[in-house]
Each structure stands twice: as structure tokens, then as C-alpha cells.
């Protein structure tokens, strides 16, 4: 298979294979933005691969050079002169054509919380606050059970009975409800952060969490302070995650 020994062919094969694997090997598919990022890295690596020593580089250049200048490559050359601009044109078209879809967005899923909030007219510190119910180990079970009841009654439609964000309504919303099983949600947040999110919901989010308004309701008027801390305890208990603790620095 001398064909495979050509650096140019190897490079092309690596690119194609990586594209196939990254596009179809990851389930659910990687977002397009991430896919292109990965392919850019692979492309860079392939360039380095073919040029990291002179023999290899010459081997890589040879077919390109010959296509560009050799008289007997005239047909291929002419074909490329037509095909490449067409491909680029097609790409430009796909980028410019209007789509019935909202453009990709970078939404700040975890924006910075305020230092304090007003909860039913009372000032509550978010920065540095602990879950007050955790002090009383004896009634832990009681609080978790109360939290579970609250969750089933209020949250399950959106956040799902497995706490994985796949509730009945979930498919209708953008942004979708948070998946509490994911290591990137409650596992990396302090309980006080959750308190803020539950109390103030989507309306309490800053601008960087737009352009789409989150449907997460603001529970301030429906749940009491204690109930919110209870449902938080339930979230951690049911998912087996640990809340982030506050760091004491220095």
C-alpha cells in the first residue's frame, strides 16, 4: 500500500477520520461550535505532523506542487480551479442564508450572584451564607423528606423525576431546565447560590444570561425561606452531590 505511505494521503486520512469520529462518534452530537474548534486543533496538529521533519515535509508538498505546476496535471488543476471556489461559495451561502433558527449563543449559565438579596422584605446574605438547616443533624431526614415533597409538588415538571432536567415540560423550554445530576451544575455551586437562583428564578438573572429568558420561576412568593433550604438539601441528597463549601483564604 504505497499509496498510504504518502504523507499527503496520510494527512488527508487523519483529517477525514477525525471529522467522522468527532461528528458521529460523540452522542449526543457535539455542538457545531465545539466540533469546529476540535477540527481546528486537529488541522493544526496535522500540519505539525507533516512538517516536523524535512523529509516528511517534502513528501507532503510534492503532490501539491505537482498539481500546481506539472503539465500532465492540467485536468486536475482545472477541475480544482472550478471546484474550490464553488465549495467556498457554498460555504459562504450557508453562512449568509437566513435560517428559521436562532443563532448559536453563549449564555452564561452561572452568572455571578449578587452579594445580598431582598427576600420578602428581609435582607439575606448570599455571599458566605451556609444552609442553616445543616446545623441540626438530628432533623436532617425530616428536612430532606420535606424537600422531596416540595420538589415533587413544584419542580418535577421541569427538572424531572430523576433530577436530570428531563421533566414533562422540559422539551418546550430554551434554555432547558438544569440537570442536577451533571457535575457542572449544583455540584460546583454553594448552597447559597442555589438559594438565590430558586428565590429569584429566571427574572432575577443578569443580562449576560440572556438573550432567551429562563422560565425558571421565582419561588420567593410561594416558598418560605426554610422550604427553599429544604428543597436544596433534597437536591444534594438525591443526587449524591456535595455542595461547594466556602473557602477560607490566606
Amino acid at each position, binding site marked *: 500500500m504505497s499509496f498510504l505511505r504518502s504523507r499527503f494521503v496520510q494527512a488527508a486520512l487523519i483529517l477525514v477520520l477525525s471529522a467522522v469520529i468527532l461528528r458521529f462518534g460523540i452522542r449526543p*452530537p457535539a455542538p457545531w461550535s465545539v466540533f469546529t*474548534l476540535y477540527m481546528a486543533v486537529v488541522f493544526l496538529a496535522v500540519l*505539525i505532523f507533516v512538517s516536523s521533519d524535512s523529509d516528511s515535509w517534502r513528501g507532503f508538498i510534492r503532490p501539491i506542487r505537482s498539481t500546481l505546476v506539472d503539465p500532465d496535471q492540467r485536468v486536475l488543476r482545472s477541475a480544482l480551479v472550478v471546484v474550490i471556489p464553488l465549495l467556498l461559495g457554498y460555504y459562504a451561502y450557508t453562512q449568509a442564508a437566513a435560517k428559521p433558527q*436562532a443563532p*448559536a*449563543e*453563549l449564555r452564561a449559565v452561572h452568572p455571578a450572584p449578587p452579594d445580598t438579596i431582598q427576600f420578602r422584605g428581609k435582607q439575606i446574605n448570599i*455571599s458566605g451564607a451556609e444552609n442553616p438547616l445543616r446545623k441540626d443533624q438530628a432533623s436532617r431526614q425530616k428536612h430532606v423528606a420535606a424537600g422531596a415533597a416540595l420538589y415533587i409538588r413544584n419542580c418535577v415538571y421541569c427538572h424531572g423525576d430523576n433530577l*436530570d432536567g428531563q421533566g414533562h415540560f422540559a422539551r418546550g423550554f430554551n434554555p432547558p431546565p438544569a440537570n442536577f445530576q451533571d*457535575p457542572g451544575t449544583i455540584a460546583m455551586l454553594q448552597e447559597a447560590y442555589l438559594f438565590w437562583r430558586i428565590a429569584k428564578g429566571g427574572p432575577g438573572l443578569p443580562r449576560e444570561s440572556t438573550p432567551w429568558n429562563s422560565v425558571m420561576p421565582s419561588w420567593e412568593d410561594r416558598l418560605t425561606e426554610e422550604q427553599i433550604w429544604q428543597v436544596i438539601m433534597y437536591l444534594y441528597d438525591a443526587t449524591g452531590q456535595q455542595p461547594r463549601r466556602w473557602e477560607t483564604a490566606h
Partner: protein
Amino acid sequence: MACDSRNKLVYVLLVFFALALLGSALPVDAQDAAREPAYRAFPVLGSRLAVWAVAQLHLNFAAFILGCPIFAVIIEIIGWRTRDQRYDWLAHEFVKLTFAAFSTTAMLGALLLFLFVGYYPRFWAYLTSIFFPTYWVYALLFFGETFIVYLWYYGWEWLSGSRKWIHVSLGVLANLVGTAILVVANSWVTFMISPGGIDESGRLVSLWKAINNYTWMPINVHRLIANIVFGGTIAAAYAAFRFLSAETQEERARYDWMGYVGNFVAVSAFIVLPFAGYWLGREIYAFNQTMGITMMGGFMSWLWIVQAILIGILFLGSNYYLWLGMERIPGSERYRKFVPPMLLILTIGFMIWATPRTMVITFDEARAMGGTHHPVLGFFGVMSAKNTVVNLMILTTFLSYILYRRANRISTKPWVRTGMGVQWAAFAVAAVIVVFFGVYGYFVDSLTRIGFSVWQVLAVLTCIVIVMAIDIPMFRGARSTGTIRWGTIATRSQYVLILLAVTFTWLMGLMGFARSGIRQHWHVYGVLRDTSVDAVTPALGYAANVITIVTIVFFALVTFIFWLGGLGERGGPKGHAPAPVIAGGSDSSEGATSQARPQGATAPSEASPRIDCAGKAGARKS
């Protein structure tokens, strides 16, 4: 160099002028302060843009002139101890670059001060009310630094021979003073991020606490290291430029070597930078959770994607340079086969390192993923994964260097097999520890996880120490498979050096923006609000444009300054001792024998240029 003394004069005047202005900026009494506007508008550009650009340029130059002498003095010491003229020449070359950039740095610093005093009077008055005593320290240190560097540079001939130790001490002193300058300036900038030592109304309670605020030490460390890297990359880019424009083989060899050393310095310092960065990040979180989240997860998420890509390029680029460099070393063919696997690790590492925490997604994609977090790729977005791959990339880079080091040497020690076995085992164990803690990190709470990164770092550092401790004796007196053919490296490697310098400069600008941006609408976080028209934090796209322009201006200035510095070289036999001949087989010391060096002779140290390629000595330029 007649223009030097004129420069000096301009510069001294500027500093005095600056000091006078400083004094006038003090709020003399309340009424005066009240009459003073809080802001003035800089024409056309706006005050923020003016201050931003000048501050960044000043920072770039300062980083260069503080970073460069650190390794210049180390190289000088090597030359002094080994009596190898080439190192002395190289050290002098580095100091020459520093020296050339000195007055520009000072000028930009003074300009920055004028801008602050003139356009941000209220802010400046406040900062002065806290830090006034340190201004004097700063000014004194700057004078000290200037005189020491002048002496160091001009006294090179005078303080040679038996007086060399005085000269080396001057170099060390220049570095101590330089670092002190950095540390003082850092206290101001870190106070703006994480103020300390003040009461509720913002009045000073303890100057020391204001200086030693939360982020002061981490930024001192992070910047000091970053400055060394920066100095190294700029010096290497300079060498690359000289390489590319060289007319003789001899010159090419010399600058090839210089570029190699510059890059070596940069990479060595670069591999500890991530650790310092994480420490800084942690302190910012610890100071203020909101600020930490703004920085990492909030509106700056995009910025970190860009940062990750730049850092990935730095890793790939510096390894690529080493691999290309192997080609000029006879005997390196043995190690070619390691390149593809190392490249694979780096590539996968880069991909994971650059996987965003918060992805840019369309609605349909979010739906398919069942949430805003990807169920598979989401695992790559968090700390555990990043720390793991960055440590693996560091190990790989170190391996590249180790292979480069031994490329033309065959150890003659009887214990080679054991030695190499232990080395490979050290690599393997370190990699296993890094991966183990990386995976285990997903099963513990976040504070424990942060603690794990310490073990990962220790594993990598221990591996580096063990491997080097074996490598150095193992290859002492090794058999050579041929000497390094300096100057024969592929030209594209030189463009890589330039690319690395540009990337690093851009990265510095970006991180400067991050540092300022996390304060959002505050001059001094939580204490002094920004009430100017520019109080909004600019979008990343705008910032990127500004950073790009600043980077271009910086390189234009640097090119101009180095060109000026080069003018003196052409003037005839002025300045320092003639440059040693590195290529062409004739040389001031051992070079002459290099052509005839038999196989099996003692191998040269990897960094010293001995070239046995054909060709006669080029004419000496100076």
C-alpha cells in the same frame, strides 16, 4: 552611542516631571478636591482607551526589561564559571536588548501617569491617598535600577577578568531591584481588584494590609514567571529575525543558538505558569465569590476559551520548535518515532483543555444534549479535566526536551539501562498519579478536588527533578554521535519563534483585560465606583481589537528600537568584545577543533554551539 546619553537625560527629566505631578495630584484640601472634576475626556479616543493602550504597552515593555535580565545574569554566570566566551557574548546580547528598551519603558510609564493624573483625577487622588509612601519607594527603586543597569551594560569590559564577580553581582542586584519594582507596582493594581487595609468608608487603616491584599502575592508570582517567559519569547523572536535576515552562515549559527536559548528559557518558565495561574484564580474566588464567578463562568467565559486556544498554541508551538531543532542534531533520528505519540497526547490535551465549560449552542443542539451541559463533553469542561491534561502536556513538553537533550549523545555509564528504566518509570508514575487524581476528582466535593491539583503538580515536579537528577550524571562524558549543526534548522522554525512571541504578547494583553474587566464598574472593587462614561465593561470582540492593535504597536516599537540598537553595531569596532564565531569551524576557543572532533569525543553540552558543518568563517562584523 551618542544618543544614549541624550536618552538618559530625557528620561531623567521625565521621571522628575512625573514626580512633581504626583505631588500635585494630592488633594490639598477638601475644597480643592471638590473643584477638581472626577474625569476629563481624552480627545477622540476617550480616556479609557487611551489609558488601556498605554498601560498595556507599558506593561509589555516593563515585562520585557524585567524578564530579560533574569536569564541574562544566569547565562552570564554560566559563562563566568565555565569560562566559555559564548555565554558571555549571549548574556551581553540579552542585556543589550533590555537596555535598548529601557527608556521607552520609562517614557510609557510617565505617559501613563500623566493620563491618570489628567483624565482620572479623582481615582488617582484616591489611590494616592492610600499608596503615596510607596510612590517614593517606586521612584527610588527606578533610579536604582537605571543606574545599576547602566553600569551593568557599560561596565561589561571594565569589570571583566578578576573583577567579573563585581559585574555578576551588579546583574543580580539589577534583578533584585527589578523584582522589587514589579512587586510595588503590583500592590497598586491588586489593591484595585481586592482592596484591603481600609475601613468601610475606604480610608486607609493599614498600608501593609493594603499592599499585602488577597491577590498581591499570587500576581507577584504569576507575573514574575510570565515576565521570564515573555522575555524569553521576545529575545527568541529577535534572534529569529536576525537569523532570517542573516547573510553569513556564521551569523545564522549564532542567532540560531540565541533563539534556542531564548526559547529554552521561555519554555522552562512556561511550564510552571499554569500552577501559578490556578493559585491566582483561587485567591480571586476566595476574596470574592462574585468576582470569581464573573471571571470564570460569567460574561468572561468566552475569554477563557480564547485563552485556552492561545495556551494550546504555545504548547504545540514550543514542542514543534524542539522537534524541528532535532534535525540539526546528528543522531536524533533515533528519537523521531516519539514525535507522533507525543503529538497525539498534545493534540488530545489541547482539545480537552479548550473544551468550553459553557458551550456556544443553538436551541436545537441544547435540546439534543438534554440541557445546556453536554453529557459527555461536559466532563471535559471542569477543573479536574483541565488540570489533568495541562499536567500531561507539561510532562510531554518535558519529555520532548529530554529527548532533544540526549539526541546526539550515547551514555557510556554502565548503569544506563537502570537509569533509563527509572526515568521512564518516573514519567509513567507521574502520568498515572495525574490521571488518577483527575478521574477521582469527579467523585469528591469541590474543595477536596481543588486540593487534588496540588498532588498532581507535585507528581509532575517530582518527575522533572528525578529525571533530571539521573539525566545529568548519565550523560556526563557521553559519547557523541556528532555535534549540533547550528544554523541549519529549517526556516519555518524561526517563524514559529516569532509566532510564539506574538501569541504570548496577545495573551498578556488578553489577561490584562481580564484582570481589569472583573472589576466591572469599579475602579477599586467595592470601594470606588467608576462613574465615567466608560463604566461599562467592553465586549470581548472590542477588547480583542484593542489588544491586537496594541500588540501590533508593541512589535512595531520593538522592531524600531532593536533596529536602532543594531545601528551601533554597524558603526565599527564599538561596544562589547567581538561576537564569538559559532559556525564555520573556526572559533575563539574550542570551535577550531570541532571540525576534527572525532566520533566518541566528549559531547558538548546541549546548549553550547559547536558546529562542524562545512564553510569558512564569515567575516566578523564588529
